[in-house]
């Protein structure tokens, strides 16, 4: 019982972060909660066999991500293409000031127009504070891919927010960045 209790406490700390990532993955609040729940259940099952989890947060993100990917695959096999693009944007629930609330809403709306792979990396790095290597492990991609998605996502979002709309959304990498000083 005590062992279970400590496991529960370890999980509890990360529920809000899992919920944020699930929202980014699913773009749907209801599916997100369901995904978080299943990830937690899988998490406790695996904790039993794997008691040496050091970075609980990124470990749980990995479970959540894999769960999402496998659900998506199943949905596709069944012939129901998961609607990833035209879902409603994440809406801020509460805000201290009108001005902030509006800006955050705009920011999240712009964020939601980014490609999924960029949104995932941007959330994990910028919001959740994961190390690049951890993100690479969660998404099971090379670290170079993490970096390029991060770079593209950041730049695209900046342009969207500054009204500097470039339809191709490609980052504006200046040539001198690549040049030896």
């Amino acid at each position, binding site marked *: 019982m005590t062992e*279970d209790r400590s*496991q*529960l406490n370890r*999980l*509890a700390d990360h*529920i*809000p972060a899992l*919920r*944020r990532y699930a*929202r980014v993955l699913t773009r749907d609040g209801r599916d997100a*909660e369901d995904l*978080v*729940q299943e990830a*937690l*259940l899988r998490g*406790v*099952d695996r904790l039993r066999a794997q008691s040496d989890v050091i970075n609980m947060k990124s470990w749980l993100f990995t479970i959540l991500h894999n769960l999402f990917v496998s659900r998506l695959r199943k949905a596709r096999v069944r012939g129901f293409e998961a609607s990833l693009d035209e879902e409603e944007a*994440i*809406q*801020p*629930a*509460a*805000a201290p000031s009108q001005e*902030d*609330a509006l*800006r*955050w*809403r705009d*920011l*999240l709306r712009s*964020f939601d127009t980014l490609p999924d792979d960029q949104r995932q990396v*941007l*959330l994990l*790095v*910028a*919001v959740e504070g994961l*190390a*690049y290597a951890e993100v690479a492990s969660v998404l099971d991609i090379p670290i170079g891919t993490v*970096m390029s998605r*991060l*770079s593209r996502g*950041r*730049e695209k*979002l*900046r342009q969207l*927010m*500054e009204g500097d709309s470039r339809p191709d959304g490609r980052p504006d*990498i*200046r040539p*001198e*960045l*690549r*040049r*030896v*000083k």
Partner: protein
Amino acid sequence: MKEIERAISDDDLQAYVDDCLDPVRLPEVEAHLTAHPEVAQRLEAYRRQRHELRQAFAAAVPPQPAADHALLRQVEAHLARRRQQRLLAAVAMIAVIIGTGVGGGSGWLLRGVALTSGGMTTVAGIGDADKDLTGVAALAEEAGAAHLVFAADRKRPVELDAAHEADLTKWLSNRLAHPVAPVDLAAAGFRFMGGRLVATDHGPAALFMYDDDKGTRLSLLIRPMTKADMEAPLSAVKAHGVDGYAWAQHGIGFSLVGAAGDDRLQQLASEARRQSGGI
């Protein structure tokens, strides 16, 4: 060996934004930014963006303590089920050992984990205690599992106590989309303690808890029935080693479980059933 002349890459700039740049590299990047104010400006925008994304997500996905709590209760119930399954598997293993040792004479133990006899339904299987159960059998299984988890909790068996009965009743009725209320078992010596919402495989359920002067606790689980047993007579059930009774009226299922002794439990269940008929 110092590579002062190394090119500043985009990766360096990202790492600068995320404050995870190699300290050795930091002065070089800073020098680069001084020489290229437009790049510095862009990185500043990224930092601002990171800050605002955090704020925006905090507002869009606010803390949800009640939902957290519900999730953890589900995990808890899941763990309790697992524990039960391991226990049953161990019992079955011992039964196999005894069975082979004695020569088949104890073979009944193997079947004993899932038998039905004399009108009593014993709900428990090896490895999949809740496999495909429907009707009042599923209800009894859920009541037993919930009772194991919550009645054993000395500190916080209920989420809202008897003093908040009105809030509790309103909350549970809303969540079940059906009016539910605790029955009054005081005449039989059981005080109403309070209750909580619990998750079952068949949706949300209300759990009301009672205790007597000896500290014996009873759990009454109530939820809408899904398919089978929309109406079911009072019947004795046993799930997860917990004795009880279950019945259904007008599509609402009830299961009263606990260690009150069979005769007393039957009387209590009959009384609860009589009262709940008016709900």
